[in-house]
């Protein structure tokens, strides 16, 4: 059984209410943080080696220390709860069942960063969670954890929940800031980075829900103790939202010392592939990261066991590796069609492109149309190379990472499953009739 730092209290009945949460040691991290100086809190987070849990995996302590601190200008902390990546639903779980954990982390982080007005930007579809968070904030206010002069420390802080209007792009930090300011959610051109010019042109830190929640165990245990969990630079625990063709989909907290194989087949986690089928492919970190075929998923190109860590999942770069991403673990069994799957993702990115810069606006639609044609038996052999060429010209040439996120899944699908694309061209009738993909990529060794 792995160590649980975030979800250990999730099963306690009534933990959503303040009194139960407080009885089980809640808000101790705030008490501890307010006895330290803000710099000491940042130092603890740095020592913990915590990496951003939203997808990019940037060290949080480093991000906090980049925050510009000009005199007389307010600083803001924004919690990114716009969790819209297909396959990712870990933040929802955390906010729904442990709202006070997030509030506690937010107060401690606000103290560390000097933010007196802290925002939770939550995805519009999470309407019922807004009520849960509002309730938790009201309780925290009533018990003096928020508002003026918290615990007599002289520190004022208030948390506001802002609902988004349902755009994936508003999960990108600068688009989120624009949306929070009440504008159209178009990503800004960087530099300047939000740490210098963010919300209302003031220095801003945008962190994921899970990142901010992880501040609580870091303060309780101390940074060094927290860093003892995990391997190498992947410290602490990570929430993985597993879905797809597995026996036990759900949100799991892993302590980043287990292997991918164990995560998929162990009864403690995913419980193996549903229906006794074989594993074909997996997207280990949310829809944007490259898909991996079974053989490369379980073992790296060097033949080592692939672990559920930032480093191991990205071992081999994009040629033979993938990314930890946001932890949306999507598993495909032997009957799933990679072309259809890629089409679904391409349609999503076309729909969610903000339309600001041309490669993404036009390229995502073009890729979707070609994939649609291939999936429906009208594809041509040149289309595979054309797709490759389009994704290559989108990647890296856009303002924000959505262009990359749209290009990577297509690139990886062609890189690893080119035969299946070709099969859709050479045997279109069979593809339409059978309606599922080639099983040749499925893993023979670990079949159930």
């Amino acid at each position, binding site marked *: 059984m792995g160590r649980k730092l975030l979800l250990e209290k999730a099963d306690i009945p009534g933990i959503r209410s303040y009194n139960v949460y407080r009885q089980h040691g809640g808000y101790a991290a705030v008490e501890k943080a307010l006895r330290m100086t803000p710099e000491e809190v940042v130092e603890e987070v740095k020592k913990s080696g915590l990496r951003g849990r939203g997808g990019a995996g940037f060290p949080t302590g480093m991000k906090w220390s980049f925050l510009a601190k000009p005199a007389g200008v307010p600083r803001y902390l924004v919690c990114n709860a716009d969790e819209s990546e297909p396959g990712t639903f870990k933040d929802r779980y955390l906010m729904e069942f442990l709202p006070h954990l997030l509030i506690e982390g937010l107060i401690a982080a606000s103290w560390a960063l000097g933010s007196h007005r802290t925002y939770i930007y939550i995805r519009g579809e999470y309407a019922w969670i807004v009520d849960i968070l509002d309730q938790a904030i009201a309780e925290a206010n009533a018990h003096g954890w928020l508002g003026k002069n918290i615990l007599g420390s002289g520190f004022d802080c208030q948390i506001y929940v802002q609902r988004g209007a349902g755009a994936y*792009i508003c999960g990108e930090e600068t688009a989120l800031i624009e949306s929070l300011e009440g504008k159209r959610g178009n990503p800004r051109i960087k530099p300047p980075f939000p740490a210098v010019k963010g919300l209302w042109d003031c220095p801003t830190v945008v962190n994921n829900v899970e990142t901010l929640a992880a501040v609580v165990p870091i303060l309780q245990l101390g940074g060094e103790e927290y860093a003892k969990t995990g391997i190498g630079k992947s410290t602490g625990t990570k929430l993985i939202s597993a879905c797809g063709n597995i026996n036990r989909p759900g949100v799991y907290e892993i302590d980043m010392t287990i292997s991918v194989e164990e995560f998929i087949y162990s009864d403690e986690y995913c419980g193996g592939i549903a229906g006794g089928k074989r594993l074909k492919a997996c997207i280990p970190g949310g829809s944007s990261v490259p898909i991996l075929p079974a053989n490369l998923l379980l073992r790296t190109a060097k033949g080592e066991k692939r672990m559920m860590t930032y480093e191991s999942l990205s071992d081999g770069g994009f040629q033979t590796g993938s990314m930890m991403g946001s932890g949306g673990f999507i598993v495909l069994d032997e009957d799933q069609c990679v072309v259809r799957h890629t089409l679904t993702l391409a349609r999503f990115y*076309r729909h969610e492109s903000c339309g600001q810069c*041309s490669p993404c606006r036009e390229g995502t639609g073009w890729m979707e149309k070609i994939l649609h044609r291939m999936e429906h038996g009208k594809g041509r052999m040149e289309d595979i190379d054309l797709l490759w060429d389009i994704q290559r010209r989108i990647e890296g040439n856009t*303002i924000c990472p959505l262009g990359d996120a749209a290009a990577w899944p297509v690139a990886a699908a062609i890189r690893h499953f080119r035969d299946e694309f070709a099969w859709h061209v050479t045997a279109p009738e069979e593809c339409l009739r059978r309606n599922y993909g080639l099983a040749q990529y499925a893993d023979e060794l670990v079949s159930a």
Partner: protein
Amino acid sequence: MAEEVKMLKVTIDNIPVEVPQGSTILQAARLIGGDVAPPAMCYYSKLKGSGGKCRTCLVEVSKGSTADPRPMPKLVASCRTGVMDGMEVKNITSDRVLDARNGVVEFLLINHPLDCPICDQAGECHLQDLSYVHGKEGTRYEFHRRTFDKHDLGPYIQLHMTRCILCYRCVQTAEQVTDGRAHGVLGRGDHAEIATYIEKALDNDFIGNVIDVCPVGALTDRTFRFKNRVWFTKPVDAHRDCPTCKGRVTLWQRGEEVLRVTARKDQWGEVEDWICNTCRFEKKKASDWIVEGPSKVDRHSVISQGHYVGLQRPTEIFSAVHDGRSPKLLMDIHSISEVNRPEVALSAIPGPATSATFDTDKKS
């Protein structure tokens, strides 16, 4: 005493140039001029916050600065990237840049209607220029193009959204030049559109300027639509004593008739002074204006066709291409063509000529 502005040295395509601190790569490249200046479809030096969107001005930074010589991993939008001292930039000397730009042109054109023959912007269209320089003749796109209905934004401006490349220039113009912006971008992705929210008219003294900033034919002057092709009209600089604006304009004339009035544009196609609606749409008589003289038109522009400057006439064309030999036979193609029917007298038939007119074999 004004603080001295620090000058930074930057090398673009191996040409060194010194620019004041705070300049962008594009501004530095425009100082050098010529082919070194990257094309810009959305950047507009007169509009704050413009640029970064079209991605045609992507350049490669092969050396970050003297202090930090690491190259930048991605191509950067030159219009929004500031120069650093000692920076080295590759524009047309970088294959990566040319390839990316070629891709951007292809992306911009896949949903563009390519209706240049009936577009009023043709001849002064930035997308045309861009496609000629950086595009390919063919397209790999085989699907239906996105289309929109045409909308009249008030009595003067027509919006043909199908042609739009979403550069946001008109939105920024309305925001920064006029008071109270009434249009913006609705929707997302490739179905995003410039629109007033539910069919409003754009009504402002300076709103006509959105026509000038539009790099394509999405916003056109309704008082000029289908009146003439720009290359048949002659641009002359003129001014008038206008109470609202500076009144410095370019008149586009055919003979004595003033067909169109626009703001004067510099060599990058940007307006020099914003002009008001009265000057642009109401003053269409030569007597309203004091003419200064012909406008300077770039020699490569289609508008300068017929005005040959410094032309060397070819002498002895046949002998030049025939190694000095003269032609053995000269034929009049009219006499042998199957298509042309010189025997059909067009002036003799009633109404316009149709294919049946030339179908003489069946008739007789």
